[in-house]
């Protein structure tokens, strides 16, 4: 392209395109050719214009580090000592560290595993009451108001991502209601991502991973081509765990 090809108002074609892409091409008030991907205001419903997802780089994830797990427990009020009678394996766990070892080469990887927020979630398919559902923006949740605690979803989930609460709880965090007799799992910290446009925050696990300096977890909007997440996904090869099930998870991994 000829670099001298400047328009009359002093903007080069490239500059002009750059500005309009950032601002969204507005052709008339209220009508735009392209909406800018951004967080929603507090009073609007979530929409399928977004799909929240995550990219986890197992090469950066440190073996033995549990920053993400600890942050998740604190953020969501898990394991606060309420579950006294439950065995360790019965206690709520929304995110866990998994260590893998290649038997042939001896290569080891460590990765965090949680609800993969599938596009076609089996937990939603099997739920008899409609309590297990997928939000418009791709977040898979349990509506505990309708959950009867049958645990079909726990059996259907290939990632073993869900927990059941066996005991009466007292120390819930106000943003995260949890109670006996219901199933729960990672919510991608909906209470954080639903915040008003400028106050929106990453899920606690991704934030903690960044704070710990590993930067192995990138959270963002899969449908926004300009998000850091989409850029990284485009640039690097990544995999869905159990891609053979064709669930199209919102969480993808590098280095496995």
């Amino acid at each position, binding site marked *: 392209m000829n670099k001298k090809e400047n328009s009359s108002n002093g903007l080069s074609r490239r500059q002009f395109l750059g500005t309009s892409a950032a601002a969204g091409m507005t052709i008339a008030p209220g009508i735009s050719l392209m909406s800018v*991907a*951004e*967080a*929603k205001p*507090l*009073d*609007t*419903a*979530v929409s399928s214009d977004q799909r929240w997802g995550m990219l986890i780089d197992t090469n950066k994830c440190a073996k033995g580090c549990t920053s993400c797990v600890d942050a998740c427990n604190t953020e969501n009020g898990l394991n606060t000592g309420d579950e006294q009678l439950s065995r360790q394996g019965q206690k709520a766990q929304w995110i866990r560290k998994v260590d893998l070892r290649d038997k042939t080469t001896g290569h080891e990887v460590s990765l965090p595993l949680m609800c993969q927020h599938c596009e076609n979630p089996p937990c939603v398919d099997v739920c008899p009451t409609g309590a297990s*559902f997928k*939000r*418009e*923006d791709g977040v898979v*949740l349990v*509506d*505990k*108001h309708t959950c009867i605690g049958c645990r079909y979803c726990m059996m259907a989930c290939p990632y073993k991502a869900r927990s059941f609460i066996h005991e*009466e*709880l*007292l120390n*819930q*965090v*106000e*943003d995260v*209601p*949890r*109670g*006996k*007799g*219901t199933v729960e799992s990672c919510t991608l910290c*909906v*209470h954080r*991502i*639903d*915040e008003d446009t*400028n*106050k*929106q*925050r*990453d899920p*606690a696990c991704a*934030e903690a991973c*960044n704070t710990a300096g590993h930067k192995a977890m990138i*959270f*963002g*909007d899969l449908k*926004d081509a300009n*998000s*850091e997440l989409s850029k990284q996904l485009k640039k690097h090869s990544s995999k869905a765990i159990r891609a053979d099930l064709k669930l199209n998870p919102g969480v993808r991994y590098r280095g496995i």
Partner: protein
Amino acid sequence: MKYLRMMLAMLTVVLLSSTTVLADVPSPTIPKGNAEKCVLPTDEMRVNHMEKILHQRDKTMHDGVRTEQFSFKKCINCHVVKDEAGKAVSYKDERHFCNSCHTYAAVKIDCFDCHASTPNSRKKTSAAGGKH
């Protein structure tokens, strides 16, 4: 006509006597909220608060709408009752705002099986941390 008048008189007597009975039961003492006024006039809230909370519940759960007017969290924060030590009382305590009326009306609620019954807002670790 005479018969009707007699019926009416009897009905009045019955009604009057029932009010006397009601007056004998001590009215619940409802603790005041901490804000200047409630999100709706008190009379309306007394009758319809459950509808408002229910509506907001589904909007929050499924649509991610977290506006403050009928937010359950906000109810709890404003209607907190503190004990002698200055600590907020939980729903296990009969002085809890919701209990003050629900015990009187004998209406059992299960909100607090899952929801926190005392305010426990924590400091946000970092604001606007995400680049989406």
